[in-house]
């Protein structure tokens, strides 16, 4: 790919200011879009094939088209909660080029007919929220936010709303409840936010990267943008690579390139010449892949075919020295902590999984525990209001499926250690209670 779309000269000094952003052609897409009828803007978005960059990969144009027509109050919410472990791409965008997000929000709100918009940013991102606030002040002063934007008749208010630390608020309905000033509990769907979202009004929710791509689509034209990437995954994607790699960070790639090229080519692969034991292709919620899967093309459908997902585009690499139990425990404990507790399978399932993993780690488990744990994961999937429970069940299930011998070996080694330490009685008691518990 010759030229990057989102990251082009992103470190240019002052890009976060209106002056530099406009000198580089910023807000021209906004003027162009607002001179078109909203249907034409929507058509460009649909033609671009842009799929949501937050995790679900839903076609953005389609999402906009789901909003009912009519004069009711409609809302646009930008999901800047970015709390999926391993993901930090939106942070880079908001910090360095906040105006592209604001421009994208105005264009998308015009296509959707929304008159109020909010950026829900996680409370931990203070620097980024400050950047957005400063950019917003400039955009207001320049007339890009407010009444009758650039004489088009379209009006939009925008508020940067800071969260207060909760993973679940990245889930769209949990986010809406949080934005309404409540605990961030997800809602029953349907009704979907497109029909009844914020304040019960039709609401369009999109990720930062998705909205930041909108000005590019208007500039290039939807059909031209769709030529990038592969057929069902068009365009470029920001990937956040972290864990055991030599050059962790954000990279903009054209969708469909081999995963190996990202992990080894861009990020340099694991340090010290080590191999890869497993990697998460789309944040800690995605089922893991192994070194055998490095040639899977990095796009939505190829990863789905490989049994995992592109998710938020966060690649986490664990090298061949990493105990698999440590990864499983970290993941499970995270979801246990972040479960909002509304649905039983998630609230209890995450807790049981952690307890079973701890038993394995302590040498108190039997191989049967692995089967029980795998079945717990199956019973979480699809049985809750949101996918937080699934987000634990998928990686844990895949870890058990792919690394069962290692779990068993760890279990046996831990048991022998416990015996050697003269705590045989405790260990077998643990086994008995483990069996009795189920």
């Amino acid at each position: 790919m010759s030229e990057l779309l989102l990251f082009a000269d992103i470190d240019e000094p002052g890009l976060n200011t209106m002056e530099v952003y406009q000198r580089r052609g910023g807000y021209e897409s906004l003027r162009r879009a607002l001179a078109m009828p909203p249907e034409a803007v929507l058509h460009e978005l649909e033609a671009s094939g842009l799929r949501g960059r937050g995790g679900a990969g839903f076609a953005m144009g389609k999402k906009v088209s789901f909003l009912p027509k009519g004069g009711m109050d409609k809302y646009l919410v930008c999901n800047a909660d970015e709390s999926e472990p391993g993901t930090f791409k939106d942070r880079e965008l908001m910090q360095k080029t906040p105006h592209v997000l604001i421009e994208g929000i105005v264009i998308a709100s015009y296509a959707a007919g929304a008159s109020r918009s909010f950026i829900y940013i996680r409370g931990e991102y203070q620097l980024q929220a400050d950047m957005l606030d400063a950019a917003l002040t400039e955009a207001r002063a320049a007339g890009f936010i407010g009444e009758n934007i650039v004489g088009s008749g379209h009006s939009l208010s925008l508020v940067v709303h800071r969260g207060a630390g909760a993973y679940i608020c990245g889930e769209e309905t949990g986010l809406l409840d949080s934005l309404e000033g409540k605990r961030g509990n997800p809602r029953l769907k349907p009704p979907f936010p497109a029909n009844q979202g914020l304040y019960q009004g039709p609401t369009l929710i999109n990720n930062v990267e998705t909205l930041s791509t909108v000005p590019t689509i208007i500039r290039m034209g939807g059909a031209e943008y769709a030529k990038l990437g592969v057929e069902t995954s068009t365009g470029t994607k920001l990937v956040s690579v972290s864990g055991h790699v030599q050059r962790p960070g954000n990279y903009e790639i054209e969708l469909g390139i081999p995963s190996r090229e990202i992990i080894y080519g861009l990020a340099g692969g694991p340090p010290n010449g080590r191999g890869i034991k497993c990697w998460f292709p789309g944040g800690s919620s995605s089922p893991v892949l192994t070194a055998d899967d490095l040639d899977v093309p990095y796009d939505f459908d190829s990863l789905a075919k490989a049994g995992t997902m592109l998710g938020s585009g966060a690649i986490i690499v664990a090298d061949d020295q990493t105990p698999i139990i440590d990864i499983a425990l970290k993941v499970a404990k995270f979801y246990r902590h972040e479960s909002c507790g509304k649905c039983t399978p998630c609230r209890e399932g995450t807790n049981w999984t952690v307890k079973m993993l701890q038993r394995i780690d302590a040498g108190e488990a039997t191989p049967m525990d692995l089967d029980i744990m795998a079945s717990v994961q199956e019973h979480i999937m699809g049985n809750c209001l949101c996918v937080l429970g699934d987000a634990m069940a998928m990686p844990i299930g895949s870890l058990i499926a792919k690394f069962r011998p290692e779990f068993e070996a760890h279990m046996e080694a831990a048991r022998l250690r416990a015996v050697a330490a003269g705590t045989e009685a405790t260990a077998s008691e643990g086994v008995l209670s483990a069996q009795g518990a189920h």
Partner: protein
Amino acid sequence: MSASDTTRPVRRYEHGSRVPGWDEAADLTKDPAEIPDPATTPVPDDLRAEIEAHMANYPDRRSATLPALAAAQRVHGWCSPQAIDQVACVMRLTPAYLASVATFYDMLETTPVGRHAVYVCTNISCSLCGADELYDAIRDAAGEDPEFNVRAFECLGACDIAPMASVDGVYVGPLSLEDIPQLLDDARAGRAVLPEKQLARRLVADPHANSQEFALHAAQPGTGSAQAQDAPTGTSPGANPDIDPARASFGPPMTEDRPGPAAPHEESHTQPPHEGDVPHQARSDQDIPHHPHEPPHPDAEEPQG
């Protein structure tokens, strides 16, 4: 090594629940608290103005709950019963409602905590890079110092600088064990924390992103920029509902007896960020302390062991 049992030694989190107070008996003889009477609930003027400005931002005033609680936490140091009463009084909501919200969010403190928040990310990417050892070492180094609120935090979204920590809202990393004494000293003294390691300075990792070499960003975005003074950000809170009076909702808390103006830390952030090509040397600006009113901690020079 667990996130939940290392978060804080609070017994009520033992069973993995997020419901503080589960082991405290309710006083069934008492009626639930009602919306506080403004006549008997004094609220600092600044806090009231800020909360009212937040409420004006939304079609439904309830949406201002999080920013309002964060503002009250900044004044009181934590979401104390008094802080919650004040927010309840201004927002016309019951204290129970606000408490239910405050207990849900990790950044709202429902027990008294140290004024300097050190969140150490111990999620998967950071822990692969040694965050668990880092967290233990920071906790040991901070010891019993009541100035510090050291917590293991879930993914802070900065895995590129793993292992990392957020010190009073400023991201620093990658951290090594040798950085800890300076990190704590900087925080105590109100200086910019580990300026060399601040996330704000970093350039993007993608080698294809920049067509030319750009200088590192200034560590403290915006400090000392004249432009900021012109921006209409200094408007008094509430004067224009479109202008958000509080920039950082989660600044370091002020002391209880000084609920004065918004902490200078926040104000410095409102200024246009990275004055791009100011490299290293310009760091004299950063000596602008986060709490100018505050004398340096007497132990500032002695790293605690």
